[in-house]
């Protein structure tokens, strides 16, 4: 058989999962073609300096199915998702653009509902939707509606993995997995009565509440690929290890039940209203207090710390007191079959 070259390879759904295959695609295709100092940071957005002002700039596309789910819809998601990317970069989100790709045949009422939801979300997050574009494609050319948003904000504080050192604490702002499970259940492929609401929320206020504390070094919102993937990205970025305790990571009963039934691991499930904060050890108490004072962070916990060992890997202390490596998500999470 002739060797398989990159030209023969096909893009698989797993390339969009946010896990290792997504990372590989970024390295093999995008960094290779577009490489520059901003992009090579491989962050969720870029920090650019214009006229002495540091701006955070990010973009994201939203293709969630179904477009309405408990706790939100594609419109609200497209605003908060981009707001959150800016917020965890240490920026105050200001302006957002919106590009719509609509499949012909979508009800105008549905579009209006989504637009209203976006408007309310923008107001809630105190950002302005300042420019946009609409394209309509033929039936079957898209699945109802896709939204791309880009956003800019002013950087309030420089955050970077570079300042992270052994002993720093890892804080998580609440329980994990609600967004992905709520969307999964909204697809109505399972005969479960479980009610799980997405955690979709704007994180800019929560982020701004703690930015004033000196010891805050890095923030990230664990979306696709979940907490495990975010922790691995941080560990890889610093070349140090991270140790987290399973019993400190909140999982709601509804999420836990669905995970048990389908064989999913909540640590790999997407969140849309949670953040992970890396903070200097002596400041952890103060940051935790401030986070708990915000309704979106009231379940915040110190879940672990940065370790000098482990060399870029993440270790989980399990509930029964054992340890195991917590790897990045490989491919799509697959349900077990027995």
């Amino acid at each position, binding site marked *: 058989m002739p060797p398989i070259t990159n030209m023969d390879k096909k893009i698989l759904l797993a390339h969009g999962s946010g896990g290792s295959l997504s990372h590989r695609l970024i390295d093999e295709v995008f960094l290779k073609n577009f490489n520059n100092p901003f992009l090579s940071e491989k962050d969720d957005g870029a920090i650019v300096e214009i006229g002495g002002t540091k701006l955070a700039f990010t973009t994201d596309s939203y293709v969630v199915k179904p477009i309405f789910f408990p706790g939100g819809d594609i419109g609200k998601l497209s605003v908060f998702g981009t707001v959150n990317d800016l917020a965890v970069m240490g920026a105050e989100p200001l302006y957002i653009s919106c590009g719509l790709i609509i499949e012909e045949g979508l009800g105008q009422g549905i579009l209006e509902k989504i637009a209203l939801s976006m408007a309310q979300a923008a107001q809630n997050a105190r950002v302005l939707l300042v420019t946009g574009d609409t394209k309509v494609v033929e039936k079957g050319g898209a699945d109802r509606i896709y939204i791309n948003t880009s956003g800019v904000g002013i950087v309030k504080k420089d955050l970077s993995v570079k300042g992270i050192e052994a002993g720093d604490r890892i804080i998580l702002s609440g329980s994990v997995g609600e967004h992905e499970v709520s969307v999964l259940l909204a697809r109505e492929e399972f005969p479960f009565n479980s009610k799980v609401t997405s955690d979709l929320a704007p994180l800019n206020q929560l982020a701004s509440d703690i930015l004033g504390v000196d010891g805050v070094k890095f923030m990230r919102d664990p979306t696709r690929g979940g907490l495990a993937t975010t922790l691995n990205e941080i560990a890889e970025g610093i070349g140090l290890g991270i140790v987290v305790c399973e019993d400190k990571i909140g999982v709601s009963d509804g999420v836990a039940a669905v995970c048990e039934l389908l064989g999913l691991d909540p640590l790999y499930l997407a969140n849309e209203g949670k953040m992970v904060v890396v903070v200097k050890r002596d400041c952890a108490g103060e940051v935790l207090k401030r986070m708990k004072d915000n309704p979106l962070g009231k379940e915040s916990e110190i879940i672990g710390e940065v370790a000098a060992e482990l060399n870029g890997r993440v270790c989980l202390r*399990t509930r029964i007191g054992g340890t195991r490596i917590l790897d990045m998500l490989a491919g799509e999470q697959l349900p077990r079959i027995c």
Partner: protein
Amino acid sequence: MKYIDEFRDRDLCLCLIEKMESLLGDSEVTIMEVCGTHTMTIFRSGIKSLLPQSIRLLSGPGCPVCVTPAAYLDQAIALSEIEDVIIATFGDMMRVPGSGSSLETQRAAGKKIAVVYSPLDALNIARNNPDKKVVFLAVGFETTSPSVAVTAIEAKKMGISNLYLLSAHKRIPPALRLLAEDSDLNVDGFILPGHVSTIIGVNPYLFLAEGYGIPSVICGFEPLDILQGICMILYQLKEKRAVLEVQYKRAVKNHGNPGAMALLNKVFIETDSEWRGLGVIANSGYAMGEEYKELDAKEVFPLKERPSVENEGCICGEILKGRKIPHQCPHFGENCTPYSPLGPCMVSSEGTCAAYYKYG
């Protein structure tokens, strides 16, 4: 969560580990957990990091995806090439490599492949697409096969004539007998699959203790279940006994589930079956019975027997027999990873190689 958290109690787990140490004394013990779900619990809960070093756990042939041969995948892939066919499959099968392609790659090439969570979902797809032929990839052990039997019965009852089953269902006891008869097998005790036992009961395993003198315990799937099961084996070894015991009493009845067994016997007949790495084992599989031949994809679709290619050097077979561990495979972690698996043990979330790779 109720009835789950109780079985993950740290203090009780540590108690059992201490107990193991006193039972072991100076001896070294090798135990095989047969079921892939046990392997997953062992890794996910970090049991290996807690066990005394003189206990070695081996993973057996109890992951349905891992023992499905490349030839079966090749048949499924060939079926997906047929114009009006929709393949319905459990997600675990998507990335299993056949001889050349995988279902995941077929899907990306535009073939119609639907991931389902229950065989009844396949029935719904068939009902909603009367102009298509839906082929369900029926893999799994006695835990899964009764629900497939129900699906076949329902399809007939409802007059749905466009659902077909490609059966590679397997029976666990014949594979265990093959292992027990293997003179190279170095196993002091078996942790037997709890969920399979809820269906088939305890009698099919009696030969392990009575015929081959191997202590055997049917176990549940939570960390405490497994640790208690290991302790029960250690007790037997210390007292030089070999019996079949049930740790998973909250779910397993001695006679299993006669209703489910009746469904299996109604729809399927026992047949010789190929296990990846283990070869063909007599009476170790289920084929569609006479009454359900019209649902049998092998009968309905003319599938050419083509020679299948298993990857050279892949030691999945040795791993499934418990003779080797993944680190002894030249491909492990090099050109065989969960991103591009060569063998099925790396694909399935329950596969030994995937578990070793993910959880180290």
